């Protein structure tokens, strides 16, 4: 199954996003994201198992600002 990390603006939004995706049957877990850390110091995201585009669409519909998406294996 595809796995990616969606980088979010805060731990609050990470939990909100995980709840939204779970409600749609997607496996998603809040994680402390190294990808945000590179940009602004510290941050959180949501690890998503499944269709990345579907997850991005669902979060956009809920007004959640996704800072970026990193696929498994692409992290530096």
């Amino acid at each position, binding site marked *: 199954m595809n796995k990616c990390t969606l980088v979010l603006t*805060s*731990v*609050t939004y*990470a*939990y*909100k996003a995980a709840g939204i995706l779970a409600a749609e049957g997607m496996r998603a877990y809040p994680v402390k994201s190294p990808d945000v850390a590179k940009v*602004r*110091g*510290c941050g959180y995201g949501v690890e998503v198992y499944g269709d990345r585009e579907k997850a991005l669409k669902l979060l956009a519909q809920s007004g959640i600002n996704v800072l970026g998406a990193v696929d498994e294996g692409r992290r530096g």
Partner: protein
Amino acid sequence: MIYFDSAATSYPKSRAAVRAVTEAMRSCGNPGRSGHAPAMRAAKIMYECREKAARVFGTDPERVILAPSCTAALNMAVKGYIKSGKVLISNLEHNAVCRPLYAMRGAGRIELVSFDALAEDAVGEFAEKVKGAAAAVFTHGSNVCGKLLPLAKLVKRAHENGALTVIDAAQTAGYAEVSFERTGADIVCCAGHKGPGGPMGTGLLIVNRALDITPATILEGGTGLYSRDEEMPDLLPERLEAGTPAVALFAGLSAALDEFSLYSDFSAFDLLCDSLRDIKGVTVYCPDKGEERLPVLLFNIDGMDCDDVMNRLARKGICVRSGFHCAPLAHEALGTLNGGVRVSLGKQNTVEEVKIFCREIAAMAKTRL
């Protein structure tokens, strides 16, 4: 013991709330700081608490700021969202509203004006005085006499004049309808440990979805977010939540919110009002039955100091509060310049307890006749 001091804090706390506090103390790390299991458990607890509060008030979880008290929430709201100009308050305000505003007035930032919430045409007076105001900051319900203000009507008048509304719902959350849908308020502050039944040390600052203002901060520090930035993050709730929060207490509040319901049975309170009014030498201050009210009243016994009454009741295992209740303006408005004895009921109180209480007051009053 008879506990008639619910306006100070709810008592007893539910077993679920106590258990949640203990479990969180055993299992949680610092939320929003790391990715290990104890830290993430704590972050989840904080988020769930926001989510449940957001459902009660009708807003988004990120617009629920978890504060150490209603006083802290009011300070953040007043100092963070009001820059300058005329600010309207009522004559029933608690010091949690007055003192931050007095401090702002002392610094030359604002001009303070008040309206008479006990007046027959309180809405009319409010509508007149709110003209040209930057904000109206007022209580939803008096912690002294139980008077409930017509919140939706006052908010509407404030908005017609472009004024921001900050509501002190310390006494009303859990006792009256507080959702944004019903009230239209911009910001509501409340205690987590009163009507909602959570632990002391919890307060909520709740922001309406429609309000799009980035508040000034009154406390800066670590948020676990954007650590390289010199400024606090502009995102809610983290912007207003510097430092490590009281996770265990919010775990308790979260558990209490699972059991949230409004106080609705006024039979014990009605009996209390009627019985006290029938006792010779006792003066009661509370709204009449037909009026919107909280189960809170103030009384005095002729010739007795209110603290003496409280102490005598305490010796008999009856808990009430005496004095000025941190609301000197309300006592001025009621004419109780030496304070009074406050009786405030919760859902746990019974008609039988009220009967016992009134017998004690009747016996005390008799000795003074």
